[in-house]
């Protein structure tokens, strides 16, 4: 399991290959690898210049590890990767990535969706949209993100 909380960019391809190589080196014999990558979207009217992501340094890795441990306990997984950035990001940059590996595709898919649903609402990150006119808007949590957790209750 690898968890990285970082301000720098990461390379989707490099991380995907490293995850796959790790499986092969460990003899995990996993047949299914799922990745999810989140990318900063531009606002529909184009007035967002950047996304600022604040986090809670002591708690962030701890909360993510708890979520990843829970995924390992619920599904039969050969490995889990979570990368989440913080700081100032511009539209088009990747925010975060999860990867899961399992013998069976359903486990890998469900675990990746579970990780995403929990990272959205239970990992201590807060997004602020920085606009062209200098204003900043805190992104509000969506009811639908909270409701997504019901699926795993």
């Amino acid at each position, binding site marked *: 399991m690898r968890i990285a909380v970082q301000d720098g960019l990461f390379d989707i391809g490099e991380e995907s290959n490293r995850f796959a190589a790790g499986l092969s080196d460990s003899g995990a014999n996993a047949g299914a690898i799922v990745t999810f990558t*989140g990318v900063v979207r531009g606002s529909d009217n184009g007035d967002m210049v950047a996304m600022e992501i*604040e986090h*809670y340094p*002591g*708690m962030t890795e*701890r*909360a993510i590890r708890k979520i990843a441990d829970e995924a390992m306990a619920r599904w039969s997984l050969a490995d889990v990767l979570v990368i*989440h950035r913080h700081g100032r990001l511009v539209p088009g940059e990747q*925010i*975060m990535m999860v990867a899961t590996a399992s013998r069976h595709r359903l486990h890998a898919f469900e675990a990746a969706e579970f990780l*995403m649903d929990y*990272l*959205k*609402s*239970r*990992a*201590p*990150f*807060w*997004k*602020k949209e920085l606009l062209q006119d200098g204003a900043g808007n*805190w*992104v*509000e*949590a969506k009811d639908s*993100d*909270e409701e997504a957790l019901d699926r795993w209750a």
Partner: protein
Amino acid sequence: MDILYFAWVRERIGLPKERVETSAATVRELVAELSAREDRYAVAFSDLSALRVALDQDLSDFDAPLDGVREVAFFPPMTGG
């Protein structure tokens, strides 16, 4: 006890962190104590349903006891992912 604030809670209160001496028994009592201190706290804590709290870096709730807790953090619902 260290108290931390994040996102718009931090902005409204005007600082990221402070040390507070308190005899509050629960989070809710601590919130009442802070809110009585100054208006900016009262404003930030005016709607607890819009806030979340973590005790020693674990999500908790406003009725949780504070005995032995060293770090309390207040913040809005998280928007990660």
